[in-house]
């Protein structure tokens, strides 16, 4: 519990539920509160009941536990049937991971609205990429960069980029950025967590960098989103359009742009002329020729 209190800090309140009977009773009512539970303390049967309640009244779930057979048996059920995000105890920086998991939980309604709008495009993807992306949007967890995503789905980066482009998405990078935005959406619209904290939790250098992403993907800044929240459907519409707008451009007469994160590595290898004043040392470090 101490870890949870520390992770929440001054950004919210923590209510402790002493037994599973009371937990199931609490879950039978609609609420947006984040549920943090230790899967080792619930049986697989209780985990099934929790999953059923969350399917009926969606809410964010964080599973925080040490590694044990009991914990993993329940965790598998929660992972398959809820948007739970998992933090296993035993690493040196688990506190920062737990903090991110608790403070950056996706908004279930926003995610559902967004995924329904992207459904047609997502269905064009191979199952491995589709399932992975859907899990990333639902849990707010997963690969943090296009390279990590390609590693997670065991595909070469270029192959994955091609699949993403063929499914009508702008780029893999934009998809990953969108998962960050959906993870932060709830913290921005329904809490008073400082923007600098949210930016830091997302790994942005500053609030301004985060706002640049929000402007790109939602046409608004985090500050405006907090003071004048968009309706969930409206936000989902804008984001879905930003993720797929490349398709629209193709139809227009504007020349087709390459995906924004297409790697220039082949261009370099195949002989973009090297400026004359640069030569390569034996160590491979470029030096300026005087």
């Amino acid at each position, binding site marked *: 519990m101490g870890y949870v209190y520390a992770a929440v800090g001054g950004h919210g309140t923590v209510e402790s539920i002493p037994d599973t009977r009371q937990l199931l009773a609490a879950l039978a009512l609609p609420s947006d509160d984040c549920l943090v539970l230790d899967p080792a303390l619930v049986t697989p049967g209780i985990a099934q009941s929790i999953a059923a309640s969350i399917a009926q009244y969606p809410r964010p779930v964080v599973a925080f536990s040490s590694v044990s057979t009991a914990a993993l048996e329940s965790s598998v059920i929660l992972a*398959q049937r809820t948007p739970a995000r998992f933090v296993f105890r035993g690493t040196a920086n688990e506190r*920062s991971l737990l903090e991110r998991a608790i403070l950056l939980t996706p908004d279930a309604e926003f995610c559902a609205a967004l995924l329904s709008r992207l459904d047609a495009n997502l269905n064009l993807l191979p199952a491995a990429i589709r399932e992975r992306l859907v899990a990333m949007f639902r849990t707010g967890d997963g690969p943090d960069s296009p390279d990590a995503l390609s590693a997670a789905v065991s595909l070469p980066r270029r192959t994955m980029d091609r699949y993403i482009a063929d499914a009508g998405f702008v780029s893999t990078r934009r998809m990953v950025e969108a998962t960050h935005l959906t993870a932060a959406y709830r913290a921005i619209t329904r809490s008073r967590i400082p923007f600098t904290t949210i930016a830091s939790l997302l790994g942005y250098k500053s609030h301004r960098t985060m706002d640049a992403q929000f402007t790109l993907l939602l046409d608004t800044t985090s500050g405006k989103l907090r003071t004048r929240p968009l309706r969930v459907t409206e936000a989902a519409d804008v984001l879905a359009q930003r993720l797929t707008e490349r398709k629209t451009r193709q139809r227009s007469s504007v020349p087709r742009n390459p995906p924004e994160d297409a790697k220039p590595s082949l261009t370099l290898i195949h002989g973009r002329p090297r400026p004359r004043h640069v030569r390569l040392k034996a160590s491979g470090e470029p030096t300026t020729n005087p």
Partner: protein
Amino acid sequence: MTDTSFLQHLATTRSDAEFARTAAGFAILQIYDSVKTNGLSSFQRNALHRIESDVAGLDAAPNVRTALEAMACALQFWESAGPVRVGRKATYTSLLMYGQALGSEGEWAMAAKVFALAGMDTELDGETWLAAESRLMMGRAYRMCADWEMAQIAYRRASQLGRESGDLSIAFRAQIGEANLLWSRGNLQGARLRLTGIARQARRSCPSVVPRVTLALAGVANMSGEYEQAISLAFGLLDTLDDDDELKYQTLVDLASFLSDYGLPMVASAALRVVQKASPERHVRRHATLNLFFLAAHHEDAAAFDLLRAELAGERLTARQQAQFALFTAQGCRRFGRFAEARSAAQRAIELASRYEHFQLVFEAETELSDIRRAMENAPSGMPQRAERSRSNTVAVSDDVMPNPSATSLDWDSVPHEIREVAESLDFMAARHGVGTSAAMNAAMSGAR
């Protein structure tokens, strides 16, 4: 797993218990490799069950046993739960736990290999946060092995992956690790500049990491001979660390080292007693006790020395700590004129340190043995003193036992007001934890009042 560090360790083990726990770790890593490549079959499942039952009967430190049990359990869920991959996350976490457990037992070479394996696999699997964490731990493990090159490579990668995964605290901690490498290699000025820059950035974008930078800056100040600044920086941190036990006790151990270097070993003892009494981690408490024993051997009376000696004799110590325990026993016994006992302890220290290839300790124990022989030839009171006050030359003070005593303690009257306040606060803290300060410290402080 093609690495040979486990095999080398197995080849040099001198006890059945040590062989059994290393073999259990090696076997589990082999199964991990096989499950990762071929998936989980009934053969591997059976092997994991057998290892689980074997691990329960192992003569190993609790954290090693817990980590091995966690590995055996998590591997059985390797392919479970679809895209969320709970089993893989649990397995990688257990792998990191095993590396940390090996590190806390002083097996840094094996720990480094485990972290390297975890780092490579998590990165290949797209688990960026776990990869960043693995590389950070790998950097520390290689630093403890004094392999600066590998440590630097690991820290650089940890910093990149930390940023990529959005966890700036890992990125900054990796940068602090890199700066610590600079001062470990003697570049104090470079380390100070680097840490100052990191502190500036951390204040802006990741304030939670600032205390770690401050502690590292205190370490540099201490290495530079600016003891008072080091003590003030470290002591100033303590008030801010109420909810971070790990860093609080690390700060107290480092503060004790700074105080000892400054010439206030009795005040250092007070800080260590708090750690010994209150730290939740067993290996941290054991480490503090060994440090206390070292200080008692050089500065306290025979009763305090014998009490700590008896306490440590019943502790489960790592190979390096056993050698250190024997060396400090030799030093204390020589100081109290028990030369025969001192000689046999020094010989044991040499034997242990040579067996486990801790060459710095071999050198120190040989020097001690020759000091003992000289003292035996001369007079019972002829204890040679080291001429110069020497500083800790450890990789990071909280990771090791203070290796060199100050020749003399400072006169309490010459201690500046700010440092006296630190001493009084530590005295109060020790009293609050129910660990009375030593008679020597009480006498010094009351004399000054």
